[in-house]
């Protein structure tokens, strides 16, 4: 039976495959009647997407509140991780007359190929209400999450945590960015995360630093310490262009960045690559453009071949190799 879904670029449906590529998984956020409310839904297909299971709700909490902005990833052993923004703690605090900044994020794990999900766990309180969560696998096969947090007082920087598959293991979030952007608003601009084999966390994120709104790249080492300075990577030298919504991917020893760049009339996708762990980057290269509406860019790794995946209103769906001119 068809059901409504949230379709904004920041809160669009997600797709992933099992390690043996025999099963496909999808998640999406289903709106409910009340504003900002929703349920995180899940379905799977074992016949290459021809048919799908009846959707299930991932979380056990059934309140008509925010469970939205789902994120999906499958670890190398097969467990499926779904994380989302959840309003239950904010609602409980309000009912108790207590202050509560932002929302929380929760996650749930399926260890039976998506037939069921274990009871959800809270990752952290006080997160942004409307920014997508980034998930990535590290060199040990663990799932790491990066999200926009709400630090005291209303500082919207990012935090990062390893998400254990085992509910008995603790979660230890740590601060990942240090822009100190103070705002009580919905940026609708979540971060991107890639982890290289040396344990380095590579992050692309939007913020306002010293009054300058831009997209930044920074690193956090395996011990959780910043490595180098943040870098406004989208500065192209063109006056008046605006960069946003970066995607970031680690493929072997190469890092890729892709982002939207708007010049006032045309939306372009620009890419950079780094072959030395993010210390130096190529000049930006335009990969695609459109004059109409568009999704945020995604980067996909197909056994070492990296593609830009981009849906546009006027020019259709684009799946473009990122490395054509660098070969």
């Amino acid at each position, binding site marked *: 039976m068809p059901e409504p879904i949230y379709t904004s670029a920041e809160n669009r449906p997600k797709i992933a495959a099992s390690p043996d590529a025999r099963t496909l998984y999808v998640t999406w956020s289903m709106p409910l009647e009340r504003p*900002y409310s929703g349920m995180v839904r899940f379905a799977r297909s074992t016949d290459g997407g021809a048919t799908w299971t009846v959707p299930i709700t991932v979380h056990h909490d059934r309140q008509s509140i925010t469970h939205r902005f789902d994120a999906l990833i499958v670890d190398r052993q097969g467990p499926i991780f779904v994380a989302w923004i959840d309003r239950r703690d904010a609602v409980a605090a309000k009912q108790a007359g207590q202050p509560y900044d932002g929302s929380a994020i929760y996650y749930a794990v399926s260890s039976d190929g998506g037939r069921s999900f274990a009871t959800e766990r809270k990752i952290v309180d006080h997160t942004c209400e409307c920014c997508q969560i980034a998930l990535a696998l590290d060199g040990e096969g663990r799932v790491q999450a990066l999200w926009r947090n709400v630090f005291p007082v209303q500082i919207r920087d990012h935090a990062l945590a390893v998400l254990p598959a085992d509910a008995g293991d603790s979660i230890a979030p740590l601060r990942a960015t240090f822009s100190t952007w103070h705002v009580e608003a919905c940026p609708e601009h979540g971060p991107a995360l890639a982890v290289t084999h040396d344990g380095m966390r590579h992050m692309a994120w939007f913020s306002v630093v010293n009054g300058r709104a831009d997209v930044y790249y920074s690193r956090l080492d395996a011990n959780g310490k910043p490595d180098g300075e943040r870098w406004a990577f989208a500065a192209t030298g063109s006056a008046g262009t*605006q960069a946003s919504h970066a995607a970031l991917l680690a493929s072997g020893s190469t890092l890729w960045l892709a982002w939207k760049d708007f010049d006032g009339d045309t939306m372009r996708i620009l890419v950079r690559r780094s072959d030395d762990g993010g210390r130096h980057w190529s000049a930006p290269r335009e990969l695609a453009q459109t004059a109409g509406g568009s999704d945020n860019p995604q980067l996909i790794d197909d056994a070492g071949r990296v593609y830009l995946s981009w849906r546009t209103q006027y020019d259709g769906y684009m799946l473009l190799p990122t490395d054509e001119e660098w070969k």
Partner: protein
Amino acid sequence: MTRVFLLLIALWLCCPAWPAAQAAQPQLPPQLQLPQLQPPQLQPLYAADVGHMLAQTPGKPQIVEIWSLDCSYCRENVERIVAWQTKHPDVRLTMVAMDSFDDNAPMLEQVLATMQLPPHTARHANAEAIPDKLRRALDTSVRGELPRTLLIDARGTRQGESGLLSPDVLDRWRRQRADRE
């Protein structure tokens, strides 16, 4: 059919008081009747029309509130602005939704109707295929965070504020505006 027609005729003949009752109600002359206060309709807004929209009340201060349906802070911010505006009725309020006009007009109308806006508040929604185009025409220094409030004084000087506004910010803007004018 004939029976139904005859029945209607009979009912009409039996109820001569109906038109008389209507006529008996006091009617004010047209010049004394209050005009119907219909809020302005939601209008599509293109980037090229932003200048025209802002020039509707030349020489008067205005607040342009940029919002969206999915922005949880936006409705609270509108409440704060409306509460402040009741004490400053000379300040014109314009609402600009970043949601697509084509896809969301009925829902936007519905939500706007709940906002207790001043009667003459102009209401617009994004008509650009690339929302960034409208956003840029409204305010070059914002990248999508909502709510975004443009405070525009009588001389056209703009001040942009992101997020929930405290009354202090609005009061300070008004004082500065008064100093300049």
